[in-house]
């Protein structure tokens, strides 16, 4: 290696290094410290040598081989390293997956022995060691090991894991522990072996072999110096003695390096060698910084203890000790000793959380996939119509087709198609189907006749609305239920939970992704359906099975838009065919598809709520003005008890309709009364039909006013529906 090549950049200047140097050793060789100070272990245990390396912060420089092209920048003395803009084109981090019968972490004496013994027993063994490029950073259930390797991340599923990671050295806790010139015993040996001049060195505890130094007897009191240690104060026989020095070597004992095993509660993980040794704790600290990564001092521990955080896990959370770069390697023995001195009992080490090492977001997210969003069978049809697609409730859905007002008008004046394939669709059948649904819903399901349907709310035990949809009775013991797009998954879990709880004879079939659904809506909807074979369309809230355009279709007559509407539920593999046929047959009727933007406006004019958009987590039917959907005469249903108990209580919340002149305010706008905010708008639309803005919004202060201010303008509380209040158009 040429003299010119043997340099790397440290804070923008070129620093020489020797072959075999780590970055930390090279920095020490130059007489500096990788940070501003603090005891160095040079073993990857502590956080006192971390720096930014090639743009990645918190890299342990003692584990980073020096090389000519490195760009090392020390972290600021106070605070965190600066954030950088994301790399425009970050390299993709590969993930390799392997399986192992036994994974041994640590290739030291005990790890090698454990691996050899297992191999002799005929087991397939994977031996991992950070020094050999395989740094285990996490143990998850499985058990699965997450390993950082030079070529990327390695995910190993192992039947059994052996942790043989050895022991870390105890760091000092006393005033002056943040100075430079402090090394653990093993770090001193490494530094000496690398040819570093330690100057006048003294050791606290036994002097490490082969390192020239003077061992001092006594109890460590403090370090002295400006930036770098110049003297150490020892107490012996009650007297303090100060010794001048250039380097202090700390040989204060060891603690098990067992962080990976502490991530693995209830997993087949065993610990061997020094990592399993019950080393004695250091003396309880009385002064100084306990956690050098966070800066937690003994006085901070005192403070949280006085506030009642009298248990290790709580002390950790309240003081943040053990939550920094080294995850407790430096501070945990001291915190345990400190608690033991106060409580008289040595606490078990705290649970460790992945990752044990600073990993990049790229490494953490490698091979992690984004949520998959479903596409309806009409996805390509929407794109062909120029739809602007967006994600709603786990699906890609058309927001509009370029002109949401034209789509709105098509529904109000002619006929339009909406893709409602995303609705939850379930079949419930069986001898106890009626009993099951009676308990599930607040409506009296027994009074729904075969061939009829009913809108229903779904409540939880607290009487809060969790979803809504239709109940269609197909036979005495068979029903089709629909739920909202975003709520279908939860609704299924809800039903299955209760099926199991009640032990009723009920069958449940999820058809959400098996059936597509097209909503044919508008004053000319029936006319269009007549052209494709629906000679005798069902009346409002009736449903029939029929054949349309040559395919089996379940036709449900209902209305969310306020116009006559027919939901056509049909097999997904024939949906595009039906869609095209309807568009072709309706061409002279002024047909055009509508997206969600128009649908939200249409239903708002009718005052129909959208669960999750207009409702909150604790919305009751009363707060929605939907007591009519609850039959309290029924003996029991989920939520009945809560509704009965709260019925007589005052309620200061109400979802109301609002109207105002001019353009609709933004959804979410505050609602004020006499200058005080009393609620917010959940839905809003400037209605071309009505000539003014319509809204739904929450009032959360009683008595409920009739006039409010929204967006600095006057708005009036008005009873929905705003459009066709008698519902004549929907029933036409």
């Amino acid at each position, binding site marked *: 290696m040429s003299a010119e090549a043997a340099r790397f950049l440290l804070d923008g200047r070129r620093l020489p290094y020797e072959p075999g140097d780590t970055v930390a050793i090279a920095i020490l060789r130059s007489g500096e410290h990788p940070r501003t100070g603090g005891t160095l272990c040079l073993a990857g245990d502590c956080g006192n040598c971390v720096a930014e390396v090639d743009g990645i912060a918190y890299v342990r420089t003692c584990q980073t081989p020096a090389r000519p092209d490195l760009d090392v920048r020390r972290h600021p003395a106070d605070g965190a390293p600066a954030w950088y803009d994301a790399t425009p084109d970050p390299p993709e981090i590969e993930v390799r997956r392997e399986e192992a019968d036994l994974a041994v972490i640590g290739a030291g004496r005990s790890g090698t022995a454990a691996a050899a013994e297992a191999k002799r027993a005929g087991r397939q063994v994977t031996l991992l060691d950070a020094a050999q490029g395989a740094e285990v950073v996490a143990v998850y259930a499985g058990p699965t090991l997450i390993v950082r390797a030079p070529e990327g991340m390695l995910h190993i599923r192992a039947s059994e894991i052996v942790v043989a990671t050895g022991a870390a050295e105890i760091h000092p806790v006393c005033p002056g522990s943040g100075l430079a010139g402090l090394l653990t015993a093993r770090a001193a040996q490494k530094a000496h072996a690398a040819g570093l001049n330690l100057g006048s060195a003294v050791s606290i505890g036994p002097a490490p072999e082969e390192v020239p130094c003077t061992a001092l007897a006594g109890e460590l009191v403090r370090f002295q110096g400006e930036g770098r240690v110049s003297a150490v104060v020892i107490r012996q026989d009650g007297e303090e003695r100060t010794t001048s020095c250039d380097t202090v070597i700390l040989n204060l004992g060891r603690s098990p390096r067992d962080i990976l095993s502490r991530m693995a509660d209830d997993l087949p993980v065993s610990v061997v060698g020094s990592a399993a040794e019950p080393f004695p704790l250091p003396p309880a600290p009385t002064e100084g910084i306990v956690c050098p990564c966070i800066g937690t001092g003994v006085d901070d521990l005192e403070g949280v203890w006085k506030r009642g955080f009298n248990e290790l896990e709580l002390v950790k959370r309240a003081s943040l000790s053990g939550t920094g770069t080294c995850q407790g390697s430096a501070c945990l023995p001291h915190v345990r000793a400190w608690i033991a001195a106060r409580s008289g009992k040595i606490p078990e080490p705290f649970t460790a959380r992945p990752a044990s090492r600073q990993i990049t977001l790229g490494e953490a997210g490698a091979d992690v*996939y984004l949520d998959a969003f*479903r*596409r309806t069978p009409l996805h390509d049809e929407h794109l062909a119509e120029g739809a602007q697609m967006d994600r709603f409730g786990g*699906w890609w859905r058309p927001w509009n087709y370029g002109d949401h007002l034209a789509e709105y008008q098509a529904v109000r004046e002619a006929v339009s198609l909406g893709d409602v394939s995303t609705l939850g669709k379930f079949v419930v*059948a069986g001898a106890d189907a009626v009993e099951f649904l009676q308990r599930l819903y607040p409506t009296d399901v027994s009074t729904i006749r075969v061939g009829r349907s009913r809108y229903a709310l779904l409540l939880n035990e607290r009487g809060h609305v969790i979803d809504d949809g239709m109940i269609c009775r197909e036979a005495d013991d068979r029903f089709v239920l629909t739920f909202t797009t975003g709520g279908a998954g939860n609704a299924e879990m809800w039903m299955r939970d209760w099926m199991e709880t009640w032990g009723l004879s009920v069958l449940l079939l999820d058809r959400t992704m*098996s059936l597509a659904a097209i909503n044919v809506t508008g004053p000319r909807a029936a006319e269009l359906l007549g052209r494709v074979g629906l000679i005798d369309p069902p009346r409002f809230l009736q449903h029939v099975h029929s054949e349309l355009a040559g395919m089996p279709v379940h036709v449900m007559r209902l209305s969310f838009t306020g116009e006559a509407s027919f939901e056509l539920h049909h097999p997904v593999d024939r949906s595009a065919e039906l869609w095209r046929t309807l568009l072709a047959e309706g061409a002279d009727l002024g047909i055009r598809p509508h997206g969600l933007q128009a649908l939200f406006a249409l239903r708002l004019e009718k005052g129909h709520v959208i669960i999750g958009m207009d409702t909150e987590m604790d919305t009751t039917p009363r707060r929605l003005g939907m007591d009519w959907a609850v039959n309290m005469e029924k003996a029991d249903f989920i939520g009945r008890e809560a509704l009965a108990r709260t019925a007589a209580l005052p309620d200061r919340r109400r979802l109301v309709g609002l109207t105002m002149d001019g353009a609709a305010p933004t959804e979410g706008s505050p609602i004020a009364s006499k200058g005080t905010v009393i609620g917010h708008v959940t839905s809003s639309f400037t209605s071309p039909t009505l000539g003014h803005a319509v809204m739904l919004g929450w009032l959360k202060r009683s008595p409920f006013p009739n006039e409010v201010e929204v967006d600095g303008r006057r708005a009036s509380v008005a009873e929905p529906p705003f459009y066709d209040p008698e519902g004549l158009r929907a029933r036409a």
Partner: protein
Amino acid sequence: MRAPEPLPALRVVAAPEALDELVVPDDHPTLRLAPDELLVIGSASVQVVGENLVVDEAGFVGWWLTPDEVREQVVPHVDWPLPTARPALAQGLVAGVPAKLWLAEDRALLLCAAAYAPELEERL
């Protein structure tokens, strides 16, 4: 990954013990999706004892794969262990997409709801 094939099937919901007793022709892969739910791939007819729901199912699509294709194209995208018995059904995320993997000695079927298929096809 190539485009998936439609997978016409029969979906059967019944009491677990009734499904345990169900006789399905040998040439139809039978996937026990849940204790009370069965998916029979292909056009088949079944006689189920007791209360049941039997419907023609068009909501799944799939890829017939060789064992080598499973190893090369599917395994790198799952973080769960493949079952070792044959035939076997595994259900979970493949490349982050909910999917099912039916494994026989000489072939395998990777299937998912048609609604997820474009996403899975793109990711494999």
